[in-house]
Structures are given as C-alpha cells and as structure tokens.
C-alpha cells in the first residue's frame, strides 16, 4: 500500500492539445450536429404516425459522436489532465501477466466484453412499456453525462493508483466506514444481479424444449473446448473458439429437431425444475477448475457478443424497421404499468441501468482494465468509448422491443398470473390494458418461432428475441428462419448470463472467503476445499433463494426483483461517483468536480426516491410494505385469495417476499447515505484545508513508450509511428 503523497505539480502534465478546428472539421461536425438535431426533432415531435427506427439510431450515433469529440475530450484533458509522458501501471509494473501494456484496440474489445452482457439487453426492453421516448432519452443523455463519465473517471483514478479496486479506493480516500459500506454493497449487488439474470434465463427456457436443449448443449461444448485446449492443442484459442461457435450453431439447429422429436418432453422443464438445474450448475461450475468450463465459456461469449452486436446493427441499418410503440404510453404517467410498477420518474432510470449508467462497470474500470492500459490518454476511447458502445447496444435492444406489436409485447411481459391460463384470457388481459391482440394472433406469433406459447414470457430476453428474429429474418433468410433467429437470440443471451452466473458465483465466493478469512484464517485459504465448497454453497444458496422465490412469486417475479436490481446497481454507481468526486476535490480540482457531482446528484435523487417509494409508498403496487400490509390484512380477515395469489399459502408467500424486498431496498438506501455522508466529511475537510489533501496517487515515473490515443491512429500519429520505427531501426539497442 502506498503512503499518501501530494499531487505532483501540474507543470508535469502535458498541456491539452488546443488547436483551432480546420474549416473541413467545422463542416463535418456541423453536419453531424444537423443530423442529430433533425433526428431528435423527428423522434421527439412526431406524434400520431409511426416513425422509422433509423431515427433513433441516428439520434444516438450523432449524439455519441459529438459527446465523444467534445465532452470526453474536455474531461480527459482539462479535468483529469491525462499525461502521456507519465508511465502507466502496465508500463511500470509490467509482469507479462496481469500488468501488461495492451494494444488499445484489443483492450477496447476486452473492456467492452467485460462491461456489456445481458443487462443492456433486458432493461430497455422492460422500459419499453412506457413508450420509446423515455428509454431513448435516458439511454442517450444518461450515457453521455453519467455512465461514460463514471467509467472513464474511475478508470483514470484507478490507473493512477496501480489498478486499485473501487473498494480499496473508497477505503483509502474516504475512510474505513465508506470503504466497508462499499464492500458490503458490492457483495449484496452481486447476489441480486445473479438472481435476476438467472431468472431471465428461467423465464426464457421454461416449457421450451428447443431453448433448453440448445442451452444444455453449451455445457458439453464448453467441456469439449476445455479438454481440447488443455490436452490436444494448448494455446490455440482462435481455432478452438471457431470450433465452439460452429458447434453452438449446430446446437441451435439441433434444438429444432429435438423439439419435434420424442425427446421433446425430456427437455420441457418447469420453472422450478430449471431453478434446481441452474443452482446445481452454478455450484458445480464455480468449484470446477477454470479450464474446464469457465475459460472456454468466456472465449465463446466474447466472440458471440461482438459478432451479434455487429450483426444486429447491420440488420437494423439494412431493414429500417418501423417503431410500433407510442412515444409515451399512459403507463409513463399513471405508474400502473404491468411490466413494472411506478411512474416514469424515478423508475425508468432504475430499470435502465446498463446502457445509461451502471455502477457495476466501476468494478471493471478499477481492477482489470487499468492494469493493461498503455497510455493515459487512451482512457477516453476505452472508458468513455466502451460505454458509448454499450449504450448503442441498449438502443438496439430498445428498437427490437419497440418494433413488435404492442399487444404482443404486453402479452409476453405481463406477470404470468395476471394473464391467466389460456390465450383467450391473455388476450382479454391485454385488451383490459387498452391494447389489442386476438388469441389467433398470439397463437400465430408462437407458431412463427416454433414455441408452444409466448404468453407470459417475461424477463426481456424472449421479447428481444422476437424483435431480433423479425429484424434479422427480414434480411437473412425470411420467415422460414424466424424460429432459428429467435432461438439464436435466446441462446446468446443465455450464454452470457450463464457465464456471468459462473464467474459471479466465483467472485462472490472469493469475496466471502476473504471477509471470513479476516477472523478465521483457514477459511480465507482459497485452496482449502471444504472452505471453497462451503463458501460456494452459501453464495449459490443466496442467489438461489431469490431465484426460487422469483419463479414462484404469485405476483410475477421479474417485476418485483428487477427494480431491486436496478436500485442496487445505481447505488453502486453513486458510490463510484462519490469516490471520483472525492478524488477530484482532494486533488485540487474542486472547480471541475461538477463533472461527477451532476451525475451523482441525479443518481442519488433517483435511487433514493425509488427506494423511498419502494419502502414507504401507500400504493400496494409500488411499495413493498404497503403490499405486505394489504396481504397480511387479507389473511387476518380470513380471506383465501387476493388478486393473483390464489391460496392462503401464496398470500403468505407474498407477505414474506415483500418483507425481504422492502428490507433490502431500505438497506441499500442506508448504505448510499452512509457513503455520501462519510465522503461529504472528507470534501469539507479538503476545502477547509485550502482545496487539497494528500491522496494515494502513485508517484510520477517518466514513460519511455509511445502509442496513439484513439482507436484509429491520426495522420499525425502515423507520422510519429513511422519516425519512431525508423529511429529504432537506425539505432538498435
């Protein structure tokens, strides 16, 4: 651990490159601004007629370009004062393993693959119940001023501290209380995250032999790849991944055959059976050696992730689908939406976390990525640019959800118990909401993707899969390929999620062992098998509990759990932004601290309002405790059913669930307040001390290397590269 040192004199920092824009640049950026302005005008102002999804994509891309060019540059050079003459941890501590200067393009890929998973695909789909505009606005504005800023600033400060984790930085720069609260928050969030993601998979796979077979096959495929890499061809990662992807596609096709064969019943599982399978899988996968399952899964999902994102972007740009949702539905204002309860503010900002602002990213931006970055100025493309890319994925998910028939959207996403057992009852439930879809249309939609039914398939993944299959089959293969693309989309989401479940359980296990190891040394030994098994079992049991409860929830699980996950994720963002603000103030940059204070304030207002409503709201649809009282009162009055809870047992279940959820929401809010108050103490201390306090920044070491800043080298940078190559060739060392 380093001792506190004062910030080095700013004189060592390179002056921000300030050049006048050439007329050509002015023309280009003028055109980009114009495209952005027109697109925003179209999506914000046109009412009563359907617009093309292209406008959403244009508005997003133009806004990202302007933000990256101007705002990210301002933050990097004026606020953070990145200094390319300063050696990064990768250069100073290079050990060829975790500290290693990595090509910025490769690191961009790694960072993106680490931050983006199923999150940006699920949140926007659920938020589409309020119409396309709330989600679009928050995803684009949120990423520019909050999410990408958080990712880049955390990356910067961790890079200046040898790649320290967020928890360590909170402890060192705020204090032990803030640090402990941050650690507890991380562990709690991990558990909720794993439960919610696993619930998405269960909802996508229950009663679907095709999906279940394909996903089940990923396990033998990963095992095969693991053995192949270990014993047959060590180190041939690309070759192994190519074989894996081919087998994966075969598994999707094979799922179609299985669904029509005698094996179909074997792979038709109930929600409960899938939960048991997932819990067993999660436990086994987290104690098996990494080479068998986790490493090959990682290879597969990294390739699939990048491949699918590119495929979907290309398909949207080629197909120009039409948005069929309204800009705002009534649910945006009355808070009575069936997918999740609560009105636009604050719940859109809770439901869409990944893609706009995701606290989880701060764990990737501190830790792995900062140890591999070559040049300080590259934080702009990796931190800010990586998050913009994730945001773009979220926009595409939103598009996929908004191009499907709103009637079908609600039939898929309403809680199962509210939809009833038949297509007729589902159709009636949707009509009650003010949308229309006939039982025949529901049957036809299920038939087109070769599923028994699409009704009540909440969780986001199936909706996205339907949207993707419409877009992709429009370009590749036509209607005959709809079922293939649907299951392709399900497969790739489930693949990410299972990888996250596996890796997350492992991380949770390590954190638990580390914590317990402080009081009982033996438990902290990660090679002591009983300790490993016990810690894994505890972590799996924790998320397994929420998963089990979510699947059996009489009120529908995802609509109860997802807001909790969003609150937890945004809470972590509040902690990350608080750490950033603290560091900006302590290092004498209080006048620039608004860069993180603005998103922090917004995030805290949103999170605390949402927690407040979840805890104290009188509306039983929104407030957990109000809901608890409603069911408890009904039980006390001797009623045997209430709403979608049809038996006293189910009612007691609701009472228990709402208690747990309510306590958790309150607990999360208290954690944020603790961190904030503790940090505010440090801010005041720093400002009173004349604007600076010592921080734990590593001392300046001069860099001896050079590398371009952006993804693509500029003409000037190429010239420097040529000269340097020439020098090296002329004077070999």
């Amino acid at each position, binding site marked *: 651990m380093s001792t506190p040192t004062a910030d080095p004199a700013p004189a060592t920092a390179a002056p921000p490159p300030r050049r006048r824009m050439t007329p050509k640049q002015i023309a280009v950026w003028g055109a980009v601004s114009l495209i952005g302005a027109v697109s925003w005008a179209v999506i914000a102002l046109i009412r009563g007629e359907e617009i093309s999804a292209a406008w959403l994509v244009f508005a997003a891309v133009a806004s990202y370009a302007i933000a990256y060019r101007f705002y990210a540059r301002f933050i990097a050079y004026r606020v953070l004062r990145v200094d390319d003459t300063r050696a990064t941890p990768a250069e100073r501590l290079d050990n*060829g393993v975790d500290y290693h200067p990595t090509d910025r393009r490769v690191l961009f890929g*790694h960072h993106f693959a680490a931050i983006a998973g199923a999150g940006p695909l699920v949140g926007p789909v659920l938020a589409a119940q309020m119409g396309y505009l709330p989600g679009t606005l928050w995803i684009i504005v949120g990423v520019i001023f909050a999410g990408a800023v958080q990712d880049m600033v955390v990356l910067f400060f961790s890079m200046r501290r040898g790649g320290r984790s967020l928890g360590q930085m909170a402890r060192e720069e705020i204090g032990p209380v803030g640090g402990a609260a941050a650690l507890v928050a991380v562990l709690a969030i991990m558990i909720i995250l794993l439960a919610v993601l696993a619930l998405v998979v269960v909802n996508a796979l229950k009663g679907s032999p095709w999906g279940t077979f394909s996903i089940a096959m990923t396990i033998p495929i990963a095992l095969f790849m693991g053995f192949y890499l270990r014993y047959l061809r*060590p180190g*041939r990662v690309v070759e192994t*991944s190519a074989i894996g992807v081919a087998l994966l596609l075969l598994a999707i096709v094979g799922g179609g055959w299985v669904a029509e064969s005698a094996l179909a019943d074997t792979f038709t599982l109930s929600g409960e059976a899938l939960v048991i399978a997932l819990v067993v899988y999660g436990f086994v996968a987290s104690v098996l050696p990494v080479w068998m399952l986790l490493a090959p899964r990682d290879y597969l999902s990294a390739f699939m992730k990048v491949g699918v994102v590119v495929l979907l972007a290309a398909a949207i740009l080629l197909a120009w689908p039409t948005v069929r949702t309204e800009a705002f539905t009534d649910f945006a204002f009355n808070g009575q939406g069936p997918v999740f309860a609560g009105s636009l503010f604050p719940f859109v900002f809770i439901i869409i976390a990944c893609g706009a602002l995701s606290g989880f990213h701060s764990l990737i931006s501190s830790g*792995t990525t900062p140890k591999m970055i070559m040049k300080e100025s590259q934080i702009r493309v990796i931190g800010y640019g990586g998050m913009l890319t994730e945001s773009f994925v979220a926009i595409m998910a939103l598009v996929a959800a908004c191009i499907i028939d709103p009637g079908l959207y609600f039939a898929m996403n309403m809680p199962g118990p509210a939809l009833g057992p038949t297509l007729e009852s589902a159709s009636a439930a949707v009509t009650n909401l003010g949308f229309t879809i006939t039982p025949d249309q529901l049957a036809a939609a299920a038939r087109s993707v070769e599923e028994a039914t699409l009704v009540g398939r909440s969780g986001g993944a199936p909706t996205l899969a339907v949207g993707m299959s419409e877009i992709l089959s429009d370009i590749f293969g036509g209607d005959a390929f709809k079922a293939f693309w649907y299951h392709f989309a399900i497969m790739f989401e489930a693949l990410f999620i299972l990888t996250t479940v596996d890796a*997350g359980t492992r991380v949770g296990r390590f954190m638990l062992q580390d914590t317990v190891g402080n009081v009982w040394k033996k438990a902290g030994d*990660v090679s002591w098998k009983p300790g490993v098994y016990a810690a894994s079992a505890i972590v799996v049991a924790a998320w397994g509990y929420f998963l089990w409860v979510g699947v059996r929830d009489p009120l529908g699980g995802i609509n109860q759990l997802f807001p909790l996950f969003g609150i937890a994720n945004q809470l972590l963002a509040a902690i990350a932004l608080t750490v950033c603000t603290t560091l900006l103030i302590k290092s004498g940059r209080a006048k620039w601290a608004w860069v993180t204070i603005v998103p922090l304030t917004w995030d805290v207002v949103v999170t605390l309002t949402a927690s407040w409503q979840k805890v104290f709201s009188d509306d039983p649809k929104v407030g957990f405790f109000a809901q608890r009282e409603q069911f408890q009162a009904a039980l006390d009055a001797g009623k045997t059913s209430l709403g979608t809870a049809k038996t006293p047992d189910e009612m007691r279940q609701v009472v228990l669930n709402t208690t747990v959820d309510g306590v958790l929401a309150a607990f999360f809010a208290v954690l944020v307040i603790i961190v904030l108050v503790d940090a505010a103490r440090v801010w005041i201390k720093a400002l009173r001390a004349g604007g600076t306090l010592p921080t734990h920044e590593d001392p300046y070491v001069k860099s001896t290397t050079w590398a371009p800043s952006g993804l693509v080298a500029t003409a000037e940078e190429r010239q420097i590269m040529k000269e340097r190559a020439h020098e090296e060739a002329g004077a070999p060392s």
Partner: protein
Amino acid sequence: MTAPPRPLGQAAGQVRARLAERLRTAWLLLREFSGERAYEIYLEHHHRHHPGEPVMSEREFWRHHIDSRDRNPRATCC
C-alpha cells in the same frame, strides 16, 4: 493531370501490399483479443526483462496461465 502516370502494375502491387499489411494487423489483433498471444507475450516479456533465465515450455505455460484464474476470478458485468 500533372503527376506523371505510374505503371499500373506497380500501383496495384502497392494496394495489394497495403491490404496484406492491414489483414496481417487485423489477424494479429484478433489473436490478441482472443488471448491466443499470451505465450508470445510471455516470451517477449521474459526475453526483455529476464534474459538468460529458463522459460516455461508452451504446454507448461498454458496450464499455468489458465490455472492462475482459479485464484484470480474476474467479474463480468451484467
């Protein structure tokens, strides 16, 4: 048209050479992204910082490389 016309074959050759160079770079980046260059990186690092010391064989290295993740789990996000 003031520039002297170049022989067509030479220009095409240059384009081909540049294209081959681009493809080589892309392949290298893909291999590095996938993690396949880990052994090469280890060798480069070893030669630069610990010249003369014995190096792990390829098989030995990969075992060590993947098993090290058993002790250092990496979180992926949502």
